[in-house]
């Protein structure tokens, strides 16, 4: 039977088992919306801004292991979506974004709502397509899902001109897909795995540094087994939190600019560093030359060959699926007769304990003004560490990463690579839809939340009982902190004046708002909010406007060049 391009697009989504499409209609996608209307298998979530559609699809994907799907119209629909697409690209999140395009015969004429979607998104997608004929829609979408999810995941955009979505052709969903220039499955080199195993077995000061790749590859299990087998300390990057249980004694916290002292010193002074699904990001290792100034052997496991030896030259590169390689590494290590050097390990742990005893995350509690760290500690306690926590970008993001102990992967959802303010709330919508009964908290700042606050309306429509934890310090706190440290206290444009009354605002959207001004009210307010299982509660915590995130390795400095809270 012949179907329109639009009907075919929706049939493809059905075939892929897509549960939710996050989107916003417009002229160029009217046929696709019509096709959506005529079925009820794929549910559509109407957001209030296309950026939020992509972030919601992204949050959905990060909290599951499925591909997130967004649908936007041509022109401004696509340009609004770009921030979301770039966010997903930087963190390697599998998305399929379908965009409408003006009709084929108008392309290139500066038609109403025409933009070169493929051109605009080219640098921030894994791949993109312009579909020129309806008979190519099915195979293109099949490829899009395959590309998004396989290898190093990422967003894929499929641009469909309006006339193509109304063209009738025969529908056949391909059972399999082959792209001759794309071979994401690789068998990791056995020799390299052996060499890695030997290095690890001989190590006196081993350190495991695991990133977002572990979460994306669902490899927390084998990672945990390996860390335990080696008896080595493990650090998880901002993207990797939950990849190894944070409450375990072998966990030394997050590395990097706001990492713990023990994680950073461990990275710096280990003799063998095993990097797993991590990319030696500038926010993680600081100054490359400083990092390279001490001798250590580096083993790097990554699905993307281009991630290896990009910033730091490594000794043993292993390209392959992180979970599979870890499994093989475990097999080799387990079959080895070599006994671990317990004396060396003991000395190493003693050293780590000494670094740990600096207690880099301690902060001064106050009973007058709410400390943001205190709110996160209480949030952790009250949700028993079991919540999905999304975050925006700024100090509150770092506090969440530092003080909420994630024991499971896919629970901590934040924009690490692009650092997109406005990510938190829409991402939480995707998470809540993927996990209807689960506790979902969005930690945000009064700056970030206003970048996508309109989504409170979407939350109402879809009854999403997210708990918004706003750490309201009346400042673009992270900007203010840098201005305090590096720009002579000149707080240029970082004060958030004329803030709305967030309680009333929440109420205006039909939600519950609670203002919390005293430290002694923090716990009660959180308890009340989480007791309201079916309602979105917006908690406006008035936090200390002068608080800073510590410890801090300033940009361009080395991992051991740390500023502690008490230094200032």
């Amino acid at each position, binding site marked *: 039977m012949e179907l329109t391009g639009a009907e075919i697009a929706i049939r493809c989504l059905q075939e892929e088992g897509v549960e939710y499409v996050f989107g916003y209609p417009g002229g160029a996608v009217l046929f696709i919306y019509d096709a959506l209307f005529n079925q009820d298998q794929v549910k559509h979530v109407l957001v209030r801004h296309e950026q939020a559609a992509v972030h919601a699809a992204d949050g959905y994907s990060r909290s599951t292991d499925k591909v997130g799907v967004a649908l936007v119209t041509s022109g401004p629909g696509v340009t609004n979506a770009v921030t979301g697409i770039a966010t997903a690209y930087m963190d390697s999140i599998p998305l399929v974004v379908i965009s409408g395009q003006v009709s084929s015969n108008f392309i290139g004429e500066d038609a109403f709502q025409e933009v070169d979607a493929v051109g605009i998104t*080219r640098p921030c997608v894994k791949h993109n397509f312009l579909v020129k004929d309806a008979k190519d829609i099915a195979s293109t979408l099949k490829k899009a899902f395959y590309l998004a999810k396989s290898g190093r995941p990422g967003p894929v955009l499929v641009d469909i001109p309006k006339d193509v979505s109304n063209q009738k052709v025969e529908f056949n969903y391909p059972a399999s897909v082959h792209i001759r*220039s794309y071979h994401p499955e690789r068998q990791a080199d056995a020799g390299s795995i052996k060499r890695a195993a030997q290095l690890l077995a001989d190590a006196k000061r081993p350190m495991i540094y695991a990133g977002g790749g572990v979460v994306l590859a669902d490899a927390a299990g084998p990672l945990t087994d390996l860390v335990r087998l080696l008896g080595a300390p493990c650090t998880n990057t901002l993207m990797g939190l939950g990849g190894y249980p944070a409450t375990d004694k072998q966990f030394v916290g997050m590395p990097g600019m706001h990492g713990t002292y023990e994680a950073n010193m461990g990275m710096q002074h280990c003799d063998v560093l095993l990097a797993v699904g991590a990319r030696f990001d500038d926010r993680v290792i600081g100054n490359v030359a400083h990092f390279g100034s001490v001798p250590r052997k580096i083993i790097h496991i990554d699905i*993307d060959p281009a991630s290896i030896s990009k910033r730091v030259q490594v000794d043993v590169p292993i390209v392959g699926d992180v979970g599979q390689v870890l499994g093989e590494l475990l097999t080799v290590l387990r079959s080895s007769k070599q006994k671990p050097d317990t004396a060396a390990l003991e000395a190493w742990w003693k050293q780590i304990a000494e670094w740990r005893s600096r207690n880099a995350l301690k902060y001064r509690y106050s009973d007058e003004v709410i400390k943001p760290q205190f709110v996160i500690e209480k949030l952790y306690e009250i949700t028993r560490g079991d919540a999905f926590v999304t975050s925006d970008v700024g100090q509150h993001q770092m506090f969440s990463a530092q003080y909420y102990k994630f024991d499971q992967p896919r629970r901590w959802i934040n924009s690490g690579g692009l650092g997109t303010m406005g990510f938190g709330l829409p991402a939480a919508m995707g998470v809540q839809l993927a996990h209807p009964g689960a506790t979902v908290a969005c930690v945000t700042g009064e700056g970030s939340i206003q970048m996508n606050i309109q989504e409170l309306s979407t939350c109402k429509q879809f009854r999403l009982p997210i708990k918004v934890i706003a750490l309201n310090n009346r400042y673009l706190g992270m900007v203010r902190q840098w201005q305090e440290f590096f720009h002579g206290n000149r707080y240029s444009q970082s004060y958030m004046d004329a803030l709305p009354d967030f309680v009333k605002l929440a109420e205006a959207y039909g939600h519950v708002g609670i203002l919390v001004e005293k430290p002694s009210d923090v716990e009660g307010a959180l308890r009340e909010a989480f007791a309201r299982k079916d309602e979105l509660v917006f908690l406006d915590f008035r936090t200390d406007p002068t608080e800073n995130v510590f410890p801090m390795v300033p940009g361009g400095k080395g991992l051991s060049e740390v500023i502690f809270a008490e230094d200032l």
Partner: protein
Amino acid sequence: MRHIISLLMENEAGALSRVAGLFSARGYNIESLTVAPTEDETLSRMTIVTRGSDAIIEQIKKQLNKLIEVVAVIDLTDGDHLERELMLVKLRAQGEAREELKRMADIFRGRIIDVSDKTYTIELTGTGSKLDSFLHAIDRNLILETVRTGSSGIGRGDRILKL
């Protein structure tokens, strides 16, 4: 170091801009880039001349390989190879210079492919440096226009880049 990278990619709209975009986005240098379809019209062959440290050239190759439409990448500089560029150059050819220019063209094995009473247009192929030397050998004031294709490269002997 100067490297000549050859690649095969799907002959599809947009593939060239993905390669060009990659170089500009990551700040890699392009000295020249040539591209045309191969005998298999589903494929295009591209030759890129670039410069960079070993680490950068390694990244360039990895990043090119990552592009979905790129089928194969080789660094011709890794082994024996041939490199040719075509140049068309229009020269002011009057009076006694006319004879002189014809002789220079012969020395460089160029061909005069268009003649007017005031000009010669010469076709010349060779390595980039041969073309440079030709231009250096001629009085600058006589050069009216030049157009160069950029280098195309191929491996010597059994070194073959094919699908």
